[in-house]
């Protein structure tokens, strides 16, 4: 048996940057990501006002919010707080949920998909039937229900989102593990007496990395959108903690008179989700030849 059969080279991750750099759309997406992450990290320094402070001059004499322009860049909300500062701090909330919830979902999905695909048999059958079952759940309804009943903190919102978001990852990882496990180099390792743990961590997992990276990136968009939706319904991140979704929730009653209170946070959500979708899609083209689009 040749060496090549024993050591199938794991997909290259090091050349990704070079290939990614050539794609204008990917660069655009990455620029947006850097912009948003930067804004979130630097919020305390660049925010012109305290996001929680209700300014006395932040409302008109009739108690209405101020439109964009003037002292308050993007205007003020119903309580006379600076919208721009709240949006900057809201980026922190969204990214926190994006990273934590998506991280948990990714771990659950990978563990379930990997276990089912590698061991197969009854463990695999049980795990994948459970995954099928979760696919049939109306995910948003489930999340709303869980979040509404739990009186959520930031961590619980993240957890609820993770609970409904791991399913897709599990299925993708499962299919990939299944085909990897059937390949010659894995059989060769087994023959040589490699332990199960060694095969899993040294041989299977590195091959799954590209897929995990792709789904991890795309997953941030899904998570951020779900958080925004839950918060918009008032069952996600609770005020006064600013989140782009709950800013719209708080100000919706005044929407017709003060549309900027819906448009700016709405645009922020779209830009964040778009950024990670663009990067994720480019990564998929670059990293995963089997999923490559028709370009």
């Amino acid at each position, binding site marked *: 048996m040749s060496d090549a059969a024993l050591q199938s080279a794991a997909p290259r991750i090091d050349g990704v940057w070079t290939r990614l750099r050539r794609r204008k759309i990917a660069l655009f997406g990455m620029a947006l990501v850097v912009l948003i992450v930067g804004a979130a990290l630097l919020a305390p320094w660049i925010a012109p006002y305290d996001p929680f402070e209700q300014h006395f001059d932040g409302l008109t004499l009739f108690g209405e919010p101020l439109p964009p322009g003037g002292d308050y860049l993007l205007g003020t909300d119903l309580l006379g707080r600076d919208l721009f500062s709240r949006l900057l701090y809201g980026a922190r909330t969204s990214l926190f949920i994006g990273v934590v919830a998506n991280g948990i979902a990714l771990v659950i999905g990978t563990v379930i998909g990997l276990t089912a695909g590698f061991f197969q048999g009854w463990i695999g059958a049980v795990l994948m039937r459970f995954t099928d079952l979760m696919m049939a759940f109306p995910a948003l309804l489930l999340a709303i229900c*869980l979040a509404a009943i739990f009186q959520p903190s930031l961590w619980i919102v993240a957890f609820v989102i993770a609970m409904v978001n791991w399913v897709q990852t599990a299925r993708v990882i499962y299919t990939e593990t299944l085909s990897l496990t059937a390949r010659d180099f894995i059989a060769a390792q087994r023959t040589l007496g490699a332990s199960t743990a060694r095969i899993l961590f040294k041989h299977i997992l590195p091959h799954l990395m590209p897929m995990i990276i792709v789904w991890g990136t795309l997953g941030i968009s899904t998570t951020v959108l779900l958080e925004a939706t839950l918060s918009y319904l008032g069952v996600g991140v609770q005020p006064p903690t600013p989140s782009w979704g709950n800013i719209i929730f708080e100000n919706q009653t005044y929407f017709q008179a003060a549309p900027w209170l819906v448009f700016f946070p709405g645009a922020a959500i779209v830009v964040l989700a778009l950024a990670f979708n663009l990067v994720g899609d480019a990564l998929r083209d670059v990293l995963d030849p089997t999923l490559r689009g*028709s370009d």
Partner: protein
Amino acid sequence: MASYTVSRLVQAVLILLGVSFITFFLLYVLPADPVRQIAGRSATPQTVANIREQLGLDQPFIVQYWRYMAGLFQGDMGRSYLQKTDVATLIAARLPASLLLMAAGIGAELVIGLTMGIVAALWRGRAIDNGLMMASFVTVSAPQFVVALLLLYLFAVTLGWFPIGGYGTLAHLVLPALTLGILGSGWYARMMRSSMIEVLRADFVRTARAKGLKRSRVILRHALPNAVLPIIAMIGIDIGIFMGGIVIVEGVFGWPGIGQLAWQAIQRVDIPIIMGVTLVSACAIVLGNLLADLITPLIDPRIRIR
């Protein structure tokens, strides 16, 4: 084919049983007490205990689940705690509105998405292709409520073309359906584009061209029908994503469907309604996937069933 259909049907039923069990379990263990909602704050412990017994909520979990399922198989979905009406009646009253919205939404989705995909494929690599693909990314990156509120502001508040919300006439249907259509179009646009590009490369298209047929005829009569077929099966899969969107869109536009029913029930911990709507939605999703699986081999004989 027959045995495949039967096994897929059995699987679908098992999945629905699983969904019912998990939902029931979640609602049972969650720290929200429906009895408190019904009895009100000033109720005495005796009243609370009485209501609990009346509703059978003092029974162990398995007994409660068994009673629910036994009822379900006789077409009884239980009674709403607060509305004192059969859940089946409530859902039946709301379902037509949701189905109407769903049909209109899927129609809008297909019209917008397929057009985008075809145009992008025909002018592949040009500015219009890049623009449309970017647009498709934006539609999958937008939350339902943002698109809904945006359309509401633009076409109802500012231009006054359509009513702000409600139900009854065709004008009421336009904005909610358009919201769902825009949201789902990106997904279809990308699939249609790849499908069309693949078909345009196929031998039979080249043959048709070589016969000297006009380009428009080749595209409309030869390429298009073949490219659209695989997309048809995707509609079934799409239903799952759709069911989520409907809760939000119905809420924003005040559309009296099952999404609103569910949302109101969640806020009041009206468990039988939550249970009922979850099951109906799960049925729709399972049925959609089932149709997709059964239709695909009919459309494309190359896909053989094991």
